């Protein structure tokens, strides 16, 4: 058990290291990061100067080391002294941006547009994304479990058909389009709910329904198929022949036993939603990480993008680790091979 925990943590650690490589490579992939960061109308000399200033002209391993551990640390390690940036032809503002503590210490540099640390800005928006993801999952559970159970209980009746067709559509509907339809109907036509922003609790209703659509459809289908499987089991037949009331058979005997894979899927969907409400946030101008990133991309504000990708990936790895360790603790039958 202890060996398993250690190995599992080590794995997560490696994965997180690889994620940092990806985040670092994002800007390097075109071969000329300075050109991506500078405004389109900049001259070649300006781009070259900026490239030198930011250290993009240095060898990749050194750039990566600076990205990880900070400029000063690497300079001290390589040169034996902290190299001061010559601020003669560079304004102080830019000098601030160049010198970071490194991502290991949570410093992804400054947001170009907002002039504050990028990670701080991402963390500021993160609670809104978490709130949206959790609300979406709660709505998904509230709809999908009754729908799946009813569907299986009344197999091949109109209830089952409606639920099956509904979840098939739910899986096929692009959620940003659903978002637009909801705005047309509830905000424009009925005037009940706001179109965008987050000023009071009911602002979350439309975004949460939109983001949770896919999860709802998937969980409904899984609950239905699991229930159908379990309802064939001997213990269900035994319970029935003992004269247990049908609704008790379904809730207590069947649903409980059908719930293990469902819990797994719910966890999985939550993980996906934490990193995947980007489009929904963009539709409803929901002030979460996704909205921040879409806005940052249109302003070429890449430190924010890098910080956001790193944070959300880290959260995903962390949540997965916790889930796996919980599993090992809850179910001793799991073999750790």
């Amino acid at each position, binding site marked *: 058990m202890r060996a398993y925990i250690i190995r599992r943590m080590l794995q997560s650690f490696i994965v997180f290291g690889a994620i940092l490589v990806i985040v670092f490579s*994002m800007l390097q992939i075109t071969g000329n990061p300075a050109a991506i960061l500078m405004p389109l109308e900049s001259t070649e000399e300006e781009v070259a100067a900026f490239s030198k200033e930011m250290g993009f002209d240095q060898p990749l391993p050194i750039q990566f080391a600076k990205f990880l551990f900070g400029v000063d640390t690497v300079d001290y390690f390589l040169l034996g002294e902290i190299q001061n940036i010559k601020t003669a032809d560079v304004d102080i503002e830019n000098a601030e941006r160049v010198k970071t503590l490194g991502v290991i210490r949570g410093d992804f540099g400054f947001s170009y547009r907002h002039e504050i640390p990028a990670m701080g800005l991402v963390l500021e928006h993160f609670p809104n994304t978490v709130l949206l993801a959790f609300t979406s999952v709660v709505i998904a559970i509230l709809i999908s479990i009754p729908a799946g159970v009813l569907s299986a209980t009344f197999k091949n009746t109109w209830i089952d058909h409606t639920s099956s067709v509904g979840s098939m559509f739910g899986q096929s509907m692009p959620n940003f389009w659903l978002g637009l339809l909801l705005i047309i109907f509830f905000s424009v036509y009925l005037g009940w709910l706001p179109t965008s922003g987050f000023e009071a609790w009911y602002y979350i209703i439309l975004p949460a329904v939109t983001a949770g659509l896919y999860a709802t459809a998937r969980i409904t289908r899984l609950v239905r198929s699991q229930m159908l499987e379990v309802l064939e089991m001997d213990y269900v037949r035994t319970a029935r022949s003992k004269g247990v009331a049908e609704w008790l058979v379904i809730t207590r005997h069947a649903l409980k036993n059908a719930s293990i894979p469902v819990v797994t899927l719910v966890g999985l969907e939550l993980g996906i939603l*934490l990193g995947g409400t980007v489009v929904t946030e963009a539709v409803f101008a929901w002030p979460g990480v996704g909205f921040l990133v879409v806005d940052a991309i249109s302003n070429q504000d890449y430190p924010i993008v890098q910080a956001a990708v790193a944070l959300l990936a880290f959260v995903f790895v962390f949540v997965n680790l916790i889930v796996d360790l919980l599993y090992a603790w809850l179910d001793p039958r799991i073999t750790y091979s």
Partner: protein
Amino acid sequence: MAVEQSQTMPRTTDEEEPRGPSEFQLAMHELKRRPPAILGLIIITIVIIMALFPWVFSPLDPVDQDLARYTKPPGFTDTAGRVYHLGTDQQGRDILSRIIWGSQISLIVGITAVLISGVIGITVGIVAGYFGGWVDTIISRIIDTALAVPFILLAISMVAILGPSLRNIILVIALRTWIVYARVVRGEVLSLKENEFVIGAKAAGCSTIRILFFYLFPNVISTTIVIATLYLGRMIIIESALSFLGLGVPPPTPTWGGMLADGRSFLDTAWWISLFPGIVLMFTVLSVNLLGDWLRDVLDPKMKRIAD
């Protein structure tokens, strides 16, 4: 975990048994009893024909702008007697014609991305599963990493950095999707390689390449076809999401996602701009998904939850 479990029963080559109906015949037999799959087949056929010969079906020029026709409702007829069946957008372009031409980008991106990711994923999966050891460990960690990175977030950033073009969009989508194939194929190969026909081939002196190509590859084809179909719909949605966020194939090329984005500013005055492209997009994805469900049940009934 579900994936691992469903892999414990490998398909065997039943050479000793008399040949039953082929998989194709079984699929066709099953199709007759599945109206949704027939519906899916009909819709997707129509969309493909539309994408192949858009000029035949498109009533008007999809990029012809005229601000005199600014956001006209469905059924609008201009002074020249041309009818705009689904209305016009904010630049006076015919929405029906744009939907028909827009099918091209969706299908090209979807199909190409599925093919590229399939080739990479199958190769990586077979190699990881067959060789095991450190090769498998490295590939498994790469898969873990790729799974952890939030896909949409990375996709929009990469497309923005590389520049939105057809090629870059396809590459970015394919570079994430191959892991789905790799995971499943790896699992299948892990159990397949313990089979007698593989061990026998090895004993008979077959080269490794030969074993990979002629013994393992044919046995993972049906699984990968199912994944490909189930993922085609998602690829189409992701392409339209990128277009929706302004990171799709640049204008004036019509894309469904781009049309939805156009309609965003006119939800209160011209709902038709965002309604109709969305309907076509949804039914296209729906029909692909219906086909995927059918193929999964026919080709690989054990694979109940595999590509989820």
